[in-house]
């Protein structure tokens, strides 16, 4: 368990949040043009990084807003938090 600094509400317990998985997976612009391989890549394939990972989180039991997080998955330390649409901080 760890604390998360929601960009809208401030510091809360992780149990208030819902993890939304890997961030910055771009939705296909033309879904009808996609091959099966590209669909598999978009829907299922994940980097699942051990180390610094970019993620989406939702403050499900709070403001219910989505935001992004940079987190070290090997020790659960949060490196940065930034709002949706903002550029990710450079590593």
């Amino acid at each position: 368990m760890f604390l998360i600094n929601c960009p809208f509400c401030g510091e809360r317990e992780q149990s208030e949040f819902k993890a939304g998985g890997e961030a910055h997976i771009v939705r296909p612009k033309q879904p009808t043009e996609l091959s099966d391989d590209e669909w598999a890549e978009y829907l299922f394939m994940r980097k699942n990084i051990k180390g610094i990972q970019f993620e989406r989180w939702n403050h499900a039991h709070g403001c219910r807003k989505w935001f992004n997080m940079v987190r070290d998955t090997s020790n659960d330390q949060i490196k940065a938090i930034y709002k949706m649409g903002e550029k990710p901080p450079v590593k």
Partner: protein
Amino acid sequence: MKNKYSIFSLIKNAFSYHENWQKAWGDPKPKKEYDIIIIGGGGHGLATAYYLAKKHDIKNIAVVEKGWIGGGNTGRNTTIIRSNYLWDASAGLYDHALKIWEGLSQELNYNVMFSQRGVMNLAHNLQDVRDLKRRTHANRLNGIDAVYLNTEEVKKFCPIINTSQDIRYPVLGGTLQRRAGTARHDAVAWGYARGADEMGVDIIQNCEVKGIKRNGDTVEGIETTKGFIKTKKIGVVAAGHSSVIANMAGLKLPLESKPLQALVSEPVKPIIDTVVMSNAVHAYISQSDKGELVIGAGTDDYVSYSQKGSHDIVEGTLSAILELYPIFSRMRMLRQWGGIVDICPDASPIISKTSIKGLYFNCGWGTGGFKATPGSGDLFAHTIANDEPHKLNAAFNINRFVSGDLVDEHGAAAVAH
């Protein structure tokens, strides 16, 4: 040649104060080259090496393990064995494993303490009842023993369950697989290690894989903390770290690695002689031969390799346990731990070739891999040796995420994720 374990060897060794037992497996230095290298010395990896040597007559095999054998999820799970999965493909896979379990102690000459004490899955709402009845019918069509029990029959089979209808999630019924049960997890790893070692497999511990060397789309070997080892075939059985190995080879897998927790209580006299699982309230419980209650909690919903889970997950499981088994209200918990499980989007495993020649993956077992250990090893060995899947694991290929032919077992996986 290994000395056979028996009552006579036990008596004989008692005279020398058990200090002269033959080593169960060696501590070899890695050779320059192997025919096949298995990455991951857990139950599945050791079983794969064992069946490669035994059934496919390949002797120049190494198992490389980052830590010590059986020190990962093999030693961290709640040891439940069952095969009551919904779909035909899964029923074939898991029941294949269950059939091997039934003769495993004899085959390995190693007591894996396989105990067919039955596994009961409880229903707590109308949808559970429908799902479990459907699954019972599906199981029976596939030749898997399964019965549906009403509330009174559940109570009769496990009297300590609180079946009163005024609890938050009352017990409305359940299924029972009598051939299911538990086994001693460490013994499974040790038994396979001893068997594989006897047939000449090199088990190399404290040897972490740092890279996979490729020549175009063919593997050439692995870089490890003990140097480069050449090989033509690599079988990856790295559980939670499968994606890490895949990334070294430039592959992406449909996996997310998450912490799954379990805990045991202080040891007490026998009180529960079966395994009871509750999907809806997320609590499952059994009692080890040492007398500890073995309790399985859920996964956290975020990716983590830290082998630490969140406290609220344990709290949620224990509150459900206490409502179902008020008798345990003053029980003290002794130990709690986490393991990193690799979860597939359809809650089914991958036992498959990949787009890289000579690279095979056995992963995605998620929250329930222990039960499949012997079958998984057998089928993965077949897949590696023949460069073709066995018919029992053909459906569990990695291309199902492209074709869309998924094997959705979220219902039978029994751990919500």
